[in-house]
């Protein structure tokens, strides 16, 4: 499901009602203002009709309109519209004016206004009764709709414009209001984002608005459970380490004691296998524990750690391992301050150094470097052994994978652990060649302090 923006969602919800309100508001403002204007224009037409009626004369040969040309011109004069008129006798016969101007459906008792069409144009007409002798004649006056349409348009614009401004302002207020309104949530998410994965303290509910309290308390419940689970796991790992390592130490002690004595040949080589397997099992147990501890949520608290100091503290043990395999282990150490879990960082370095020593032939060189490059702390281990072919460099990071044909008895966990630990510290890990395109060089570069 794609993430839904609350803001877009609110706008989507609000837009149709706002548009509807806009139309309704325009209608409500439009009709009350167009009505009186129409009545006033109609009244002007009625006045023209009454004036015309006053020129109606009854003679012996029927009715006629004696309209001087000047008057006709005045009556028909209008700035925008064409004016038409027609005078009809009591029986509907044409007396004067524009023949064919439509009459209303029923003869008018009083003045009647109506819309009709004349000469293909929409016109507004009024019909009024006019005395002609003893009878009632009819006068029809009509005009085209130019000024009425213009008036309607003007009224519409003058009501719609402020309404649209109000609507736009409403949308802007919603847009920024939602952002402001969601501010406490954003601060909450910033606080959670800024935490390290191992930081499972409760979130301080003080200063958060009442509406977010249920969310905060639900999060705090979850954090509480997580932190309990995490401390259970830490305790389990510590116990497991103890339960595994103590008997392994005993096993190793006794095999080494036995090997120190003269032994007949098949027994000796068999015991040597047991001894090697004991050491391997201990290492595997260490690695599995490290892997479990590197899982997010199981991590200890991050602390400032200098990689140089970490290497110096382990150097003695590593040099003895290297001497046992006749490998020259050297160092090139400059301060490299990082923020992390000292146990995991030590385990990562130990795995890299162990790999270097393990896979370098007798008489080879392994070098551990720490320092800062471009402000980024790094540690790298370089050897002049057979190296890792480029095609294998991705696969060696998989758990339990070993490069085919590799001598020795590794578990295939070492580099997977290193990668896991590097990733957990936001560091990048690169496998490449050593100096002179020989051997292997694994570098871990940490984010800028």
């Amino acid at each position, binding site marked *: 499901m794609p993430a839904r923006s609350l803001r877009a969602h609110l706008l989507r919800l609000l837009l149709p009602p706002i548009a509807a309100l806009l139309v309704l508001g325009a209608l409500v403002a439009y009709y009350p203002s167009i009505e009186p204007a129409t009545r006033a224009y109609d009244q002007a037409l009625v006045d023209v009709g009454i004036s015309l009626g006053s020129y109606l004369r009854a003679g012996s040969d029927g009715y006629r309109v004696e309209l001087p040309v000047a008057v006709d011109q005045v009556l028909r004069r209008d700035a925008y519209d064409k004016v038409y008129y027609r005078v009809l006798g009591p029986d509907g016969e044409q007396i004067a004016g524009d023949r064919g101007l439509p009459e209303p459906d029923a003869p008018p008792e009083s003045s009647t206004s109506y819309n009709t069409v004349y000469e293909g144009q929409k016109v507004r007409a009024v019909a009024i009764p006019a005395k002609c002798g003893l009878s009632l004649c009819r006068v029809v006056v009509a005009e085209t709709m130019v000024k009425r349409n213009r008036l309607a348009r003007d009224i519409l614009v003058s009501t719609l414009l402020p309404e649209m401004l109000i609507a736009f302002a409403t949308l802007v207020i919603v847009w920024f209001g939602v952002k402001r309104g969601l501010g406490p949530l954003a601060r909450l998410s910033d606080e959670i984002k800024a935490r390290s994965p191992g930081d499972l303290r409760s979130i301080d509910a003080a200063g958060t608005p009442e509406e977010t309290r249920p969310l905060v308390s639900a999060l705090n419940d979850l954090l509480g459970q997580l932190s309990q689970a995490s401390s259970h796991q830490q305790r389990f790992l510590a116990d497991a380490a103890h339960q595994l390592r*103590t008997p392994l130490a005993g096993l190793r002690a006794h095999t*080494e004691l036995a090997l120190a004595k003269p032994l007949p040949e098949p027994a000796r080589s068999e015991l040597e296998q047991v001894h090697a397997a004991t050491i391997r099992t201990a290492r595997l147990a260490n690695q599995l524990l490290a892997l479990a501890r590197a899982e997010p949520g199981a991590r200890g608290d991050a602390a400032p750690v200098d990689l140089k100091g970490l290497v110096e503290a382990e*150097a003695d043990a590593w*040099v003895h391992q290297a001497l046992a395999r006749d490998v020259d*282990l050297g*160092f090139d150490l400059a301060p490299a301050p990082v923020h992390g879990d000292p146990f995991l960082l030590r385990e990562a370095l130990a795995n890299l150094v162990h790999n270097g020593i393990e896979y370098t032939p007798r008489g080879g060189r392994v070098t551990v470097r720490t320092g800062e490059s471009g402000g980024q702390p790094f540690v790298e281990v370089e050897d002049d052994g057979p190296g890792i072919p480029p095609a294998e460099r991705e696969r060696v990071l998989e758990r339990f994978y070993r490069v085919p044909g590799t001598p020795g008895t590794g578990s295939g966990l070492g580099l997977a652990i290193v990668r896991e630990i590097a990733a957990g510290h936001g560091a990048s890990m690169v496998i490449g060649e050593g100096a002179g395109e020989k051997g292997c060089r694994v570098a871990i570069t940490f984010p800028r302090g």
Partner: protein
Amino acid sequence: MRLLIVEDDAPLASGLRRILEAEGHAVDVTSRGEQAVLAASQERFDLVILDIGLPQIDGFEVLRRLRAQPRQASGPLPVLVLTARDAVDDRVRGLDLGADDYMVKPFAMPELTARVRALLRRSQAHGGPRIVHGPLTLDTVARRAFLRSEPLELAAREWAVLEVLLGRVEKIVSKESIIQAVAGWGDELSPNAIEVYVSRLRSKLEPAGIKIRTVRGFGYMLEEYKEES
């Protein structure tokens, strides 16, 4: 030497006892912390090997009680802590409480015996004025050195560097820590100068089979003396 092993895992305890007895030590074993504290208060031991993960009172508490006891006449009782836990805190806590060395299980027996020897040597150096390393003898009171009973000429700085290395046989010692130990207040001593002293020491000691190994980019290690066969 008389050693006390405090370890509740019976196979490991018996293995340790036999290895250390083979080294020529008299070894007592107990699996309980209270007994260890009691034994150390009543009898004289030269070294205690102490497991942290003991039932009832744990190794930290044993260490605290041992350190609270009145000191023996021959100086403080060396304690080598064994642990199966790998939390850095444990190591720091152990050393803070006064442990002299620290080993994580499982360990190689030669490493254990080397560390036991180093601790015993160090504690004896506290007591006696003579440091012996194979054919080399340093009389720290008379400030005279002998190699195969022949007097050995050592400059003051050479003597100081050698003393640092002799205090940490089979352990690597960084150039920085040698400088710190050797240079007096206001002295300027460069890493290059240390190299010069070490190379002079080598030319004097190597003919007698005493080897100082260079740890590239780090420092030096005085190897344990092995009788030439």
